[in-house]
């Protein structure tokens, strides 16, 4: 899923300065699963905004709406009868949400309430960890299901580096060295020889380095 964190309240309040009619829009996709932008979090943020408004003597109108997804036009469309009633739309979806909203409703002001962080999964309740960097050319099959692009601090394809110690990365004791894990797994499975094969420099044009990306499936395009 796409993982995100709510922006600090001070930043959100600063963005909303001068707006009195606010629509907080959640998304039932990834941000619901990582507990940052679903209907529950929308309710919490709306309540916080109302408290802040009352404290500052402002008569804020804060309403809530959670869409199935904010990354599909048919769901974004469902706001069409509402947007004119608000000065600002605060999206709690990933970075895709506020952009789809502002593309569909160019007259409205659409702002993000979250910082979109990475593609990852829940390693325990309340803890998410990065697993994919969306580089556009998956190499996980070479590394026994572990991605050094996303999980090595240097994205090394021929690791580990000298910064690996006791299974941890030199950047932090909280960061596992993925190359340590790859080597251990290869040893356990008797396939350490796989790592003798030199991995040439990666072609990063399929990643962000190639510019904004687009995926077209001709069989689906109407």
């Amino acid at each position, binding site marked *: 899923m796409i993982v995100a964190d709510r922006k600090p309240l001070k930043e959100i309040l600063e963005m909303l300065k001068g707006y009195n009619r606010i629509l907080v829009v959640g998304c039932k996709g990834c941000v619901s699963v990582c507990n940052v932008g679903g209907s529950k979090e929308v309710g*919490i943020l709306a*309540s916080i905004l*109302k408290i802040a408004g009352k*404290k500052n003597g402002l008569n804020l109108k804060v309403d809530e709406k959670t869409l199935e997804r904010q990354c599909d036009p048919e769901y974004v469309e469902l706001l069409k009868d509402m947007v004119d009633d608000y000065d600002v739309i605060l999206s709690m979806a990933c970075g895709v949400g506020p952009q789809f909203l502002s593309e569909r409703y160019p007259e409205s002001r659409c702002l993000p309430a979250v910082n979109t962080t990475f593609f990852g999964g829940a390693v325990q309740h309340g803890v998410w960890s990065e697993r994919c960097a969306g580089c556009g050319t998956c190499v996980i099959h070479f590394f026994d299901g572990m991605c050094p692009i996303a999980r090595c601090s240097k994205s090394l394809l021929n690791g580990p580096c000298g910064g690996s110690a006791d299974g941890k990365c030199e950047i932090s004791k909280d960061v596992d060295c993925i190359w340590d894990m790859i080597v251990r797994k290869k040893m356990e499975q008797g396939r350490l020889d796989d790592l003798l094969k030199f991995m040439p420099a990666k072609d990063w044009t399929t990643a962000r380095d190639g510019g904004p990306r687009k995926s077209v499936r001709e069989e689906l395009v109407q």
Partner: protein
Amino acid sequence: MRLPYPSNVKIIQVPCSGRVDILHLLRAIEDGADGVYVAGCLEGECHYISGNLKAKKRVQYVKKVLEELDLEPERVEMFNLSAGEGPRFAQIAREMVERIKGLGPSPVNA
């Protein structure tokens, strides 16, 4: 025991303090409560294993929110006591009321 405690404390009963949600605490503040506290069972003695520990974390979350809004985090609190401690329940109610009186009315009501 018929123990007296301040009449301005309004009690909302829940099956377990683990039922108390962040939104319940925020809505109380939003609707004008000068303070809110959760009275849960003693730590380690939750009948539902960890309800009171969950409530504690939610109270901490709301305290942080209040701080970020430049409101006093002391307006929200978690207390732990057993169901058999009537006198302590009354004492906590008095303590909390005194604390809130010291802080004054909530700026949300201004």
